[in-house]
C-alpha cells in the first residue's frame, strides 16, 4: 500500500477544491468545488481505514457521501431561490451587506 500517494492525491484534490471556491464566480461551480474537497476527504478516510485495518474510515466515507448529497440538495435550492429573485447566480453580485 502506498499510503503517501493516496494522501498526496487527496491533498491535491483538496487544494484544487479550495482554489475553486476562492476563484470561481458561479455559485454552482463553487458548490462543485466543495464537493471536490469532500471527496478528497473520502480518499483520505478510505486510505487511512485500509492502513489501520478497521472499518471506521470506510463507514465514515459512506456517511460523508450521504451528507454531501443532502448538502448539495439544499445548496442548489438556495441558489435557485436566489436565481428567481435576481436572475443570476454570480456570487460577486451578492454584496448588499458589507463593512
Amino acid at each position, binding site marked *: 500500500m502506498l499510503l503517501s500517494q493516496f494522501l498526496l492525491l487527496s491533498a491535491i484534490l483538496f487544494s484544487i477544491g479550495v482554489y475553486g471556491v476562492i476563484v470561481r464566480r458561479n455559485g454552482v461551480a463553487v458548490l462543485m468545488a466543495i464537493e471536490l474537497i469532500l471527496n478528497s476527504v473520502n480518499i483520505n478516510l478510505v486510505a487511512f481505514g485500509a492502513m489501520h485495518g478497521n472499518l471506521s474510515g470506510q463507514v465514515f466515507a459512506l456517511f460523508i457521501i450521504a451528507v454531501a448529497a443532502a448538502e448539495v440538495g439544499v445548496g442548489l435550492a438556495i441558489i435557485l431561490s436566489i436565481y428567481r429573485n435576481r436572475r443570476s447566480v454570480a456570487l460577486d453580485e451578492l454584496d448588499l451587506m*458589507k463593512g
Partner: protein
Amino acid sequence: MLELTWLIPALPLAGFVVLLVAGRRLGEPLAGWLATAAVGGSFVATAVVFLGLVAEPAAERRFGQVLFEWVPAGGFSVDLGFLVDPLSVAMCLFVTFCATLIHLYAIGYMHGDPNFTKFFVYLNLFVFSMLMLVLGDNMLVTFLGWEGVGACSYFLISFWHTSDANASAGKKAFVTNRVGDWGYMVAMFLTFTALGSIRYVDIADGAAGLTATTATAVALLLLVGAAGKSAQIPLFVWLPDAMAGPTPVSALIHAATMVTSGVYLFTRMNGVVAAAHPWVSTVIAVIGVATALVAASIAVAQNDIKKVLAYSTISQLGYMFLAIGSGAYVAAIFHMITHAFFKALLFLGAGSVIHGMADEQDMRRMGALRKLMPVTAVTYIVGWLAIAGVPPFSGFWSKDEILLFAWEKSPVLWFVGLVTALLTAFYMSRQVFLTFFGEARWDEPLEDAVPELAVERGLLPYEGENEIDDDIEQVYELDHLPHGVGPKEAIHPHESPWLMTLPLVVLAVMAAVSEIIQLPVTNTTKYLEHWLYPVVEQGEHHLTASTATKWGLAVVAIVAGAVGILGAASIYLKRRLDEQPAAPEVLRNGWYYDSGLAAFMGGPGRAAFEAVAWFDRTIIDGAVNGVATVVRVASGGLQRTQTGFVRAYAGIVTAGAVLVVFVLILRGVVL
C-alpha cells in the same frame, strides 16, 4: 436595631421602582414628595442603626448582614451583604441627611420642569447606588454601587446635553470613568488572587500579610479607580462638564456624595496602603495637593457661579487625597463630612440664586442680591466662611487638621496646601462679593459673554472682535442657551420658595456647627477619631507635633485665609464705594475694570485654566479622539476586509486555516 440595615438602601430602591412604574401618573409634586420620603426614611433607618451601633462596646462595632449568597462557592464566594461599622454608618448618616435635604430642595427647584418625575427617578437610583457602595461588605457589592453612581451621572449628563455639541462632555465622562472602573476591576481581581477573598473584613485582617509589591500594585490600581471617580489629576476634566445638570444633581452627585467615593475606598482599604511601599502614599499626597492647587487657581478665573464651585469641589477633594497620602484618614473623613455640608449648601445656594435670576449663571450680571434674597445670602455667607477656613466654622477645623498631618509628612506639602487655602479664601470671597454685594448689574445682558459662547458654538472662527455684533442675535436664537448667558432682557431677582430655603438654613446650621464631632480641644472631644479608630487603625498616622507647632500652624492658616478674603475685598468691594455715583457709561467701564482686574489677579488662574484647557483639548480629547482614531483606522482597515464578497471571505478563512495549521506544526514538530 442593627437588623434594620437592609432598609437603608431598600427604601430609595423602592422609591426608584415606584417612580419608574407610576411616576408619570403621580406627577408633580407628588413624585417629588414620594422620593423625598423614601430618602428621609432611609435617613431615619440609618439613625436607628447608628444608635444600635453606639450601644455596642467600641471593639465590637462591626456587624454584618447577609441578604443572600450572591455568587456561590467554587473558591469564590461573594455575599450580597452589608457591613455596618463606624465608617459605613458615618458615611450613610451624612449621605442620607444631605440627600434628604437636596430632594426637598429639588421639589421647589424642578417646579415646572418637563423632566420632573424622571429627575427624581434618577435621584433615588443614585442614592440607592451610593448606599450600596458605602454599605457593601465586599468589593463586588461596592463595585455594583460604583457602577451605579457612574451610570447615573453619565445618564444625567447625556440626557441634559441633548445637543451634539455637548455629546463630547458625556463621552469624556464615560471614558474617564471607564478608566477608573478598569483600575478598580483589576484591583479587585488582584486582591482576590492575593488574599483569596474580597470581603473587607478579610482584607483588613489579611492586609498586613501582603507582600509590599502586591499591596503596591493594588494601591496604585485603586488610585486609578479613585482618581477617576473623585476627579483627581489627570482624570478630573469630566467633573466641570458634568455640572451641566440641574443644580440639585450637582449638589448631590458632584459635591456631597459620589465624588467622595474614592476617598471612602481608600479609607476602607487603608490596610493595603499601609502595607504598600511608602512611596505610594507620597504619590497619593502629591496628586492630591497638586489637584487642590491647580483646581483652586482655575476657580479664581471663572465667571460662572457653578463653575467656580465645580473647580472648588475638585480642589477640596484634592485636600482629602492629601489627607489620605499623609495617613490622616480620620481627617479625610472629617473633611468629607464638613465639605458635604458646606458644599451642598453652596451649590444649593447657587441654585437658589440661579433660580431667582431666571437661569442666569454669570456672576458678572449679579451683585447686591443680599437685599433681594436675604435667606439665600445669609446662608451662602455661612458656607463661604466655612470653606474659606474662618474659625469657628466647620471648614477651618477639618482643613487645619489635614494641614497638620501634611506638615508632618512634608513641609512642602503643607506649604502648597496653605497656598491653596489662601486661593480658596480668595475665589470664594470674590464670588460672594460679586454675587451678593456691590451694585446690581442684572438689568443688562452681558455682551462679552456672548462672543465666548459664539466661539464655543462654532459660530465664530475664533475670538475675533469685529464680526461679533451680527452674530450675537444668532447666538441668542439658539434654542438651548447654555449657562453663562441668561435672558437678554432685564432680570427681576426674587427670593426662592420655602421648599428651597429650608434646606439652605438646615445646611447652614450644619456647616457652622458640624466641627463639634471632632474638636481638637481635648482628647475626649475628638469623637470622630474615637469612633473611626478601629477601622483605620492600620493606616492612621500618629501625630508627634508639639502643641506649639499646632497653634503656630493654625495661626498661619487663619492668616492665609484672612489674606485671601481681604485681598478679594480690596478688589471687589472697594470699587463699589468709589464708583457708586458714576454714570452708566462709567459704570460699565468700572465693570470692565473689574473684569480686567479679575484677569490680572487671575493671571495665574487664567494661566492654569488655559493649561488645563490645553490639557483637556490636547491630552484628554487627544486620548479620547486618539482612541477613536485608532478604532476608526483599525476598523477601517478591518472593514475593508469585510468586502461582502463570499470569495474573499473564503480566502480569509483559508488564510486563517493555513496560519493555524502552520503555527501548530511549526511549534509542535519543528521546535
